[in-house]
């Protein structure tokens, strides 16, 4: 039997982390979690997940981008999802649609928080090619 895949979740909002962990475990994955960018960086020293989900704004406004950059440098093949509550309504729009954005945002997918569990599962499966 194939080993269960391991998903890393980093979020400083304890409720968001709890819920994300619950959902991802329900989908049949193992999870490792961290509650800050700094903790996340530390976790990466010893762990190699199959996929990572990072919150965007933690200690720094761009903590999620920093973590994506670091994980991609170490493990270029690990897919990364950035999940954030930063809204498009305020004009703070970014995605991965243009070449320029893909150049500096080292993530594979960008999701708004409040995403439905089935959508999340679909995105994870797509990135893990399940």
């Amino acid at each position, binding site marked *: 039997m194939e080993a269960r895949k391991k998903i890393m979740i980093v979020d400083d909002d304890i409720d*968001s982390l709890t819920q994300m962990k619950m959902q991802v475990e329900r989908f049949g994955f193992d999870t490792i979690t961290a509650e800050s960018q700094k903790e996340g960086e530390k976790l990466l020293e010893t762990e190699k997940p199959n996929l990572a989900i990072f919150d965007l704004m933690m200690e720094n406004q761009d903590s999620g981008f920093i973590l994506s950059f670091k994980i991609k440098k170490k493990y270029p093949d690990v897919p990364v999802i950035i999940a954030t509550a930063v809204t498009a309504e305020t004009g703070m729009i970014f995605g991965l649609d243009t070449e320029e954005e893909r150049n500096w945002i080292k993530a594979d997918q960008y999701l708004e*928080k409040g995403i439905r569990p089935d959508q999340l599962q679909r995105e994870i499966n797509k990135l893990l090619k399940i």
Partner: protein
Amino acid sequence: MATLKVLVVDDEPGIRSGINRILQNFTVGYPFMDEDFDFSIIEAETGEKAIETIDNQQIDIVLLDNKLPGIHGIEVLEYINKKNYDAEVMMITSYASLDLAVKATNNGAFNFVPKPFTPQELKSAMENITKHLFLKRISRKMNEEGQQLRFQFLSVLSHELKSPVNAIEGYLQIMKDKQVGDNIGDYKMMIERSLERLKGMRTLISDLLDLTKIESGVKTRDFRPVDITEVFRIARDTIEPLANQRNVKIQPVQEEEIYINADRGEIEIIFNNLLSNAVKYNRDGGEVIVGLKKQNGKLEITVADTGIGMTEEEVSKLFGEFVRIKNMKTKNITGSGLGLSIVKKLVELYDGEIRVESQPDVGSKFTVTIPD
């Protein structure tokens, strides 16, 4: 010294060289400007050439004759307006065509100098147009910066409001789907967390209202002698339940009355914020030491705690909007991130100041001084 580029459009070489000579060593300065301006002159003998020049480089001021061999000056003016170039236009025109000059100013020219003009007339016209250009640019810049700040505030605010909504919605969804079974007891943590997040939102909303009142200046401030010791006691009573939960002791203050002229509501907000921080960022079983005194016509409030303290870097960020010091020690502490920014704004309304001394794992001490 900054240099403005002046394009002189006239088919008479004498006028062009005359303007060149007059403006050569001429500078414009006003007390409100950081630096004086001088002028570099570019000449064009036709309207067509003028348009070509304006398309190719940033021109600040255009001195424009109307009667030109090809297209007329007024058409050059229309072109500049249509393209929205950031240049001011001054018409140079003979008295015979005053009607036209008036028409040009209606069409967006800044003003006109009638031909023939004396060097002094040209110079004073240049002073006016330079002042106008400077003020226009500076006010545009200030507007843009203001909008930028507002935009940042709104995007952080929306993040701060959406996070609890998402958290609560997520828990409700889990409960609706009965993801951990039929026993309501198994959802206790989720219900408690939801209530906690709602409480946080309520605090954020009331802090936002405080901040809006302060910033709009709409709030009528009611100045009268305020008994500071009494306001402190009320704030302490409000915060006492939270302090008891953490076994934090708020030291009583001397009972002597201290009065200053102030808006009582504002002083309450200052105390509430300082005291609740001193309790929230304390250690269990810690202390809050408050000092109140008035000397040399100044009220001094000190609130010291025996809590987690801050590093120098953290202190330097402390008074910004939505700044919450995030580290392992603070991860379970809730707050809007607006409290100290509100306190600072209020204290500044009184021409007072707020200082902070802090040491990690020892505690922080906030000192507010307010002149009476």
